[in-house]
């Protein structure tokens, strides 16, 4: 069974300036010792507290929306859930196969053909070549790209590339799905077909965590929501209440 437990998770980011990124400066700094120290106050590394004392507990069937301003820590939290960022402190326990789908086109290679890109995207999602080959026909058919699949995808329109990425990304169902602003599906003609597939796909996923600015999207997909501000959770509860709270917070 899929589950997510976060206990007192905090994440802070170093913000480096050009000089703190230089090994040469760093060595000179330590070699010259105290005297120059006085001038190097400006070389301190600023730290941004991106998440503070986050506690979350999710179980199978949960659909959690993350709402908040830009920079409230939504994306950082998704990355912590995906195991990309290890927190500075606190405990993260995630059970189940996790797929972060922040950019469904991640890793697509412009010079490679459609078929090659299906394989590539599949490998990114953690599938084996053999598994991808067995799903190839189904994916190819869904994209309706036909002979185009033999051409490098740089010859595709943006919409066609989107279809391809969409078709592969929704072909395998993970236990936990992490989404940043939902999944785009390309041109209008394709949209209905995509919506159906997306619905079928998301229904099978155990846990979804969605970060979005679109209240509409959060309302339709999520039963629960967190309102975040300055890296902290300021409200957790049913989506409707969370959205009200968020609107009140913005309050103008």
């Amino acid at each position, binding site marked *: 069974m899929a589950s997510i437990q976060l206990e007192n998770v905090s994440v802070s980011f*170093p913000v480096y300036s050009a000089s*703190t990124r230089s090994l040469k400066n760093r060595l000179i700094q330590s070699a010259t010792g105290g005297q120059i120290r006085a001038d190097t106050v400006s070389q301190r590394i600023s730290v941004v507290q991106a998440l503070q004392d986050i506690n979350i507990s999710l179980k199978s069937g949960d659909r959690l929306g993350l709402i908040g301003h830009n920079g409230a820590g939504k994306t950082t939290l998704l990355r912590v859930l995906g195991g990309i960022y290890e927190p500075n402190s606190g405990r993260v326990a995630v059970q189940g196969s996790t797929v972060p789908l922040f950019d469904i086109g*991640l890793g697509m290679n412009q010079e490679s053909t459609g078929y090659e890109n299906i394989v*590539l995207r599949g490998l990114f999602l953690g599938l084996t070549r053999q598994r991808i080959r067995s799903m190839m026909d189904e994916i190819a058919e869904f994209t309706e790209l036909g002979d185009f699949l033999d051409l490098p995808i740089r010859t595709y329109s943006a919409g066609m590339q989107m279809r391809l990425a969409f078709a592969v990304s929704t072909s395998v169902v993970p236990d936990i799905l992490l989404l940043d602003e939902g999944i785009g599906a390309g041109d209008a003609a394709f949209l209905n077909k995509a919506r159906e597939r997306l619905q079928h796909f998301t229904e099978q996923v155990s846990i979804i965590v969605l970060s979005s600015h679109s209240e509409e999207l959060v309302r339709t997909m999520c039963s629960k929501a967190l309102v975040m501000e300055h890296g902290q959770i300021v409200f957790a509860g049913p989506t409707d209440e969370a959205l009200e709270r968020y609107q009140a917070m913005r309050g103008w």
Partner: protein
Amino acid sequence: MSTDTLHGESSLLIQLRHGLRREQIDHALSDIAAGWGRRELWMTLGLHDVRQRYRRSKLGPFWITLSMAIMVLALGILYGQIFGQDLHEYLPFLAAGFVIWGLIASLIIDGCQSFIMAEGMIRQLNAPLSIYAYRGIWSTLIAFGHNIWVFFAVAVWFGVDLNWNLLWVPVALLMLLLNGLWIALFFGLLSARFRDVPLIVGSIVQVLFFITPVIWRPEMLPGRALLLDLNPFYHLVEIMRAPLLGQAPGLENWLTVILITVVGWTATLFFYSAYRWRIAYWV
């Protein structure tokens, strides 16, 4: 977001203490093991990297072969004259040395870029970080697979005695790649934090090319000074060049290489355990 300022040094120490706990060492080891498990992914990525460079040219990746061949011929004929060498001996020596040096240099130089180059993927993909190190090594190996034919062509043309010692070549290759892996992890990590490291390393490698016997023969150095024996790159090159030229590999060369491997891996495991979890924040 609230911001506060800390001394860089103290936070680095905090990170180090955090990183050296037992579980972090386990994480680092399982990262490297899990990276190996995702080899279908990094093999594909490495192959795409090579093809990307040569995609629209007729010769494709054989451009690598061709440019290596031209380099070896030009340098061979020029330096053969300067050093007054017999081309029958000198050209195969140079070709072998050059191809091996190309492999080692690219393991180091590309190794520095392993995490920097993959920053987009690192922040979006929950895969073990070591796959980016493996990926670079794989594309280096593919390039080597194209270059080595230059040596064999020269060797056949000049009638080099290709004998059973050739069996040492794959063993030596494996050893070089094993060293390439710690180099990619170690220097990749260091470069992700300090962005001038690739530049520093690049210029050091250039100097090393001249002080390592690649275009000159070890025998040309009077008294076979310490300069030779203390240069780890001499031994790294030699374990592969000797069997390519039909000679039995030297024991001292192998022992030195094994020592380098052990020391390199120990240092790398230490740093990779301590700082692996910071890489995603650094890139």
